């Protein structure tokens, strides 16, 4: 294992974060606070409680997930798209490293960023509403798994995209809507039965539900199902990336 190479890529990517600290961390935090004001303040005054938890408190896990999901995809897709776009990718492709090491470096850095971001948002939220994390271990597990999985997805998007438009389109048209509709701001029990069934096809439901369970022990689907779905998604992404490097898709043809 070429650990030096993994470390080099990882540190390079993390450096990019510190350089662009405003976009990377500050902007998502600001927008989360805005969500709080709008959803927690305005709507929360009408819906007082969901499943026995005050609305403001209820939405915290969903909000964190929303940011972690979108930022993981954005970080990782940019991380690999930029070198492809500028051409500096040649160096990584000509280096004596395996696909797994490349992914470890890029995805590791992207996931680290969004985990830090998730924890910052958690901290920010705890200043605004009363919070309690019932199962910190599970919370971290879900946070890490989600960050890694969606960074993998972002990595795939960054390789597939051949223009900046395409780079934006998937997060904008797929990830964000699915996260919104996946129960970030409500319990799916609040929906009519038909929409509840439809929602079960949305993978985000499982993430958000599992994550919320680790806070308040309330969930839309069982913990095992949540964990299983995240793991499944992670494996699918890994297999896709392995295929990409095997065939050189969009990288070497």
């Amino acid at each position, binding site marked *: 294992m*070429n650990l*030096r*190479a993994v*470390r*080099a*890529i990882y540190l*390079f990517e993390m*450096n*990019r974060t510190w*350089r662009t600290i405003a976009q990377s961390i500050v902007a998502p935090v600001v927008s989360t606070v805005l969500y709080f004001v709008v959803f927690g303040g305005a709507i929360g005054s009408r819906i007082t409680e969901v499943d026995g938890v005050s609305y403001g408190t209820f939405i915290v896990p969903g909000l964190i997930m929303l940011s972690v999901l979108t930022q993981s995809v954005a970080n990782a897709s940019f991380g690999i798209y930029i070198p492809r776009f*500028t*051409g*500096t990718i*040649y*160096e*990584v*492709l*000509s*280096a*004596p*490293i*395996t696909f797994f090491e490349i992914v470890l470096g890029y995805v590791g850095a992207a996931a680290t960023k969004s985990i830090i971001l998730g924890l910052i948002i958690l901290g920010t939220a705890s200043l605004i509403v009363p919070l309690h994390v019932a199962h910190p271990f599970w919370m971290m597990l879900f946070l890490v798994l989600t960050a890694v999985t969606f960074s993998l997805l972002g990595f795939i998007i960054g390789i597939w995209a051949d223009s900046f438009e395409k780079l934006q389109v998937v997060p904008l048209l797929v990830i964000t809507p699915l996260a919104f509709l996946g129960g970030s701001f409500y319990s799916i029990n609040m929906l009519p039965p038909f929409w509840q069934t439809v929602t079960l096809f949305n993978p985000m439901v499982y993430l958000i539900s599992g994550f919320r369970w680790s806070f308040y022990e309330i969930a839309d689907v069982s913990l095992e199902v949540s964990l299983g779905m995240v793991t499944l998604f992670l494996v699918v992404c890994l297999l896709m990336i392995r295929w990409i490097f095997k*065939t*050189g898709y969009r990288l*070497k*043809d």
Partner: protein
Amino acid sequence: MESIISVSHLSKTYAGGFQALKAVDLDIEKGEIFALLGPNGAGKTTLIGIICGILNPSEGSVHVGGHDIIEDFIKTRSMIGLVPQELTTDTFETVWTTVNFSRGLFGKKADPKHIEDLLRKLSLWEKKDSRIMALSGGMKRRVMIAKALSHEPKVLFLDEPTAGVDVELRKDMWEVVKVLRESGVTIILTTHYIEEAEEMADRIGVINNGEIVLVDTKTELMRKLGTKQLTVELHQALDSIPAALAAHDLELAADGTQLVYTYDTQAERTGITSLLNELNQAGIKFRDLSTSQSSLEDIFVNLVKRPS
């Protein structure tokens, strides 16, 4: 000689269907400087890209140091340093970080002393803390060379290393390359400057339309393919070449005061004796004779122009 790179039947067809390499066979000897010459679009960059692992080959195989570039890519790539044709650098990074990054990427232990020496040799030391975007084109080119050398490769590819580099700097680079060769590094360079190949290379390969047209040592190549020119300084200017001399490959130059005869040094007979005899018989007087050898550039242009 032991070959360090061995390319056999290598073909590349791009996704669009264009065949950029056609069953190329090529051996690079250990420790030599090999110049790959060819016009735009000949397939030089494609060939290098495949050997370095940036492009997938369509057919054929490449071995570097005896290892297959696909099966044993960790071994082969560890040996290779690449300076690509395009100036692609991380514009926001400093020279120091980007060069150290390259070394790490190739799995080598950090060695600030080595990097410092390298930057000094390439006259980049004063710029080590500058961001790359603040450098000139020629400096960027040197940063790319520093990156390629940071991990102490055994084989160095230079894809048009001196494009857009001023004369002074070009000479410096030739120096660096020669020193590298003395330390045992094998160097493969592509260039459009024939003088560069002439100045530096031990062997020269010419590629055209995705095919290697010729590979030979520089001296042999110049001898074998070289034509010479015999210039006859005339006493009296001629308006046209006399009919009696039409059998020879002659041209008038310098307002008719010079007669230039082009002949093949490889031919059984150069035709010089009969030409001079015929000049005598035609009563054309001359004052002086001189010969000159065609440069590699002429050879190259001839080779590439020749319909295949």
